[in-house]
């Protein structure tokens, strides 16, 4: 091996090492400065947005088909609004509890939520929601929950600022 070749290899290796660093940093840039988010099609707000001043045509993602009324066994509980939005809990045989206390399945850090607020549980293949005597109440779709009420897939359950729903 000649001296020259070895020097070229040596410097080349350092250059490649730094190229890796630069690549990693450029990947990270996207979440330092945020990435462009396509507007979410959600009811009135989204319907108004494209007409407002969005000159650039935005290719909209197809809105997910509403799961309303579809029969089937839900497999997860999804938080769709509130501080925890995006959290999913896999449903098994056992009940899911929601509230401010640390032993709840979903711990909600929200002043409008009681420490043991509500419970979602299965019975005979059907999921029910039950209010556990909370101060501000639990709402299933638009009705206040009293006793155990059956929950269908996609029906929003409101607890304080948080909304959860069952998903297939």
């Amino acid at each position, binding site marked *: 091996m000649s001296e020259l070749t070895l020097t070229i290899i040596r410097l080349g*290796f350092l250059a*490649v090492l730094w190229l890796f660093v630069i690549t*990693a940093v450029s990947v*990270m840039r996207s979440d330092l400065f945020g990435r462009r988010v396509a507007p979410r099609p*959600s009811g009135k707000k989204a319907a108004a947005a494209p007409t407002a001043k969005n000159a650039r045509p935005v290719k909209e993602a197809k809105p997910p088909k509403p799961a309303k009324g579809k029969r089937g066994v839900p497999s997860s509980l999804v938080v769709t609004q509130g501080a925890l939005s995006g959290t999913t809990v896999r449903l098994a045989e056992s009940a899911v509890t929601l509230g401010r206390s640390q032993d709840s399945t979903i711990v909600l850090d929200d002043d409008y939520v009681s420490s043991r607020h509500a419970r979602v549980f299965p019975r005979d293949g059907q999921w029910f929601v039950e209010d556990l005597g909370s101060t501000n109440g639990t709402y299933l779709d638009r009705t206040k929950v009293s006793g155990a009420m059956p929950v269908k897939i996609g029906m929003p359950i*409101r607890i304080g600022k948080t909304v959860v729903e069952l998903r297939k």
Partner: protein
Amino acid sequence: MNAAARLRNPRNVELGMLVFSLVIAMAAYASVGLAHDGQLPAGMVGYGAGLGVLFLAAHLTLRRFARDADPVLLPSVTLINGLGLAIIHRLDLAAADRATRLGIDAPSAAAPPQLTWTAVGVILFVVVLVGVRDHRVLQRFTYTAMLAGLGLLLLPLVPGIGTTINGARIWIRVAGFSFQPGELAKICLLVFFAGYLVVKRDVLALASRRVAGVDLPRARDLGPILVAWAASLAVLVFERDLGTSLLFFGVFVALLYVATERLSWLLIGLGLFASGSFVAWSLFSHVQDRVDIWLHAFAPDNVGDSSYQLVQGLFGMGTGGILGKGLGQGRPDIVPYANTDFIIAAVGEELGLTGLMALLVIYGIIVQRGLRTSIAVRDAFGKLLAAGLAFSLALQVFVVVGGVTRLIPLTGLTMPFLSYGGSSLVSNWVLIALLLRISDAARRPAPTPSASLQDARTQVVRL
């Protein structure tokens, strides 16, 4: 899926960077061979294929079980691991040369076992990602993790299986394998710290008295930090392991700060650290030795004796200079334990300041991704755990590099993923698996709410 969306898929980005990191690892291996023998190493294709299969397995696991996890973490880790393998191999070659020169038997090579440990690490990485589908499950094992962590930490003290190597009693030897249980204890204790502080942080943050502009906690709330302090001092006294002791206490104080946002905990922690260090220094000869080596490294009495390793490491890095001697062309083998504690000196000599900086930036990237995950994840336990995992890596890198460059006294920790050592490598792969699991939860896009909700009216009463 259109082209742009496919490009933005984190897993595709990751695959691209993974190939890149594999290429760099192979280039390092090849240039060691070229410099040493003047030709490409013989087993290169097999080695590259093996390493590729391992890293691809890790990648495919992420694709299947953690789709939204961070794309930069895995390639960064594989790069460091691959580079470490090449440098350890290079030090093996130097040791073999020396043995032939002196006409003695060559010491057993360190690179093949390190490769085996890499495989074990990746397998555990896969097991953790498949087994732990949701990091919140770990919160249920808060106190189990504490027991497991303390048990592992104390295991080397058990007579019969614990062994003392180089003055530190941190090894266990079972069936011919030696292992440092303290490395796994680190992860267990992190789970415990996170789980414990999530529950207790309100008490620790809110009950306080204000003295001279600083919120001081009540005396009875000092319990946990005193226990952590005493435990890390116990590690120092009975196992004579400076590094683990420092790491353990530092991570606890950092998590306490993250959980409570109270500056007073940092001040109390620093105060306890200072007093603990002083007591340890005045009572124990092995701590005094370390401080003496650090302060008087170039004293004539020390240079050929106690500080030989440190000074040779410094000379090595000085020889490397800005651009380094080139892989396989320096003499990093002069430094004792060049492939574990002093691997940074070997990198500094052969890759120079430029290479060392690149390596440190990559560690910085890993830590940044961890802290970023901690900010982004929604649940409090995940936040604390991710912050703890990331900070423990950062502290470990600081302690090792600081020790080798004589910024702080030497403590004898390993460089994560780079140094030779199975226990460290394996537990760091587990650590990264947990970090990726949390990162998957943090980066998962929020589901769209059902349309019917928009008109919903509820009345909210605040009491």
